[in-house]
């Protein structure tokens, strides 16, 4: 059953990624684009975990965890830049 469900899930998340990309391109303002990037990395984590289940491999866990950490730092840094015009004060 998983052989059919996992490709289906990949398609669904792919659609989510396309919608997010559309928002990223459309804007209209900077916070919208940051929010779209934030959603993109969350969806990337979901795809990685899904891929790990598909291949039955534990290796993708580390990558997903790293993306979670780095993505959060990136979002906060860019939002901080918008707020203050400076990242490290």
């Amino acid at each position, binding site marked *: 059953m998983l052989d059919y469900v996992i490709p289906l899930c990949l398609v669904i998340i792919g659609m989510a990624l396309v919608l997010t990309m559309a928002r990223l391109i459309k804007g209209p303002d900077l916070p919208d684009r940051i929010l779209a990037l934030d*959603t993109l990395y969350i969806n990337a984590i979901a795809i990685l975990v899904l891929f790990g289940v598909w291949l039955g491999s534990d290796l993708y866990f580390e990558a997903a965890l790293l993306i979670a950490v780095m993505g959060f730092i990136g979002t906060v840094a860019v939002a901080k830049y918008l707020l203050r015009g400076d990242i490290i004060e």
Partner: protein
Amino acid sequence: MAFWIEALVALFLLLGSLFALVGAIGLYRLPDFFMRLHGPTKASTLGVGGMVIASMIYFSFSGKGISLHELLIALFLFITAPVSAHMLAKAAMQQKLHINKETRGKPWEQ
């Protein structure tokens, strides 16, 4: 692997990806930034939560013993998603983004 475990994994995978899709749809079609903020902070986070639960069940029953470390991803996301949403909302308020005209109440000025 037993059939019902596979079914459970499939169910959680589908739920997770559907929630992620709902979050992305919210991000795409809602009219103003503050409303768009709701989609990703809640739905996408829970989407990853569903995926992680599915992965936990799958690896726990695939013969290498209990596997719980995926829980860390979900935990981390649940802690960080509200923080980044808060930062983005603050930035958006400072930039005085367009707010949907039906919104009642006003963001304050500080």
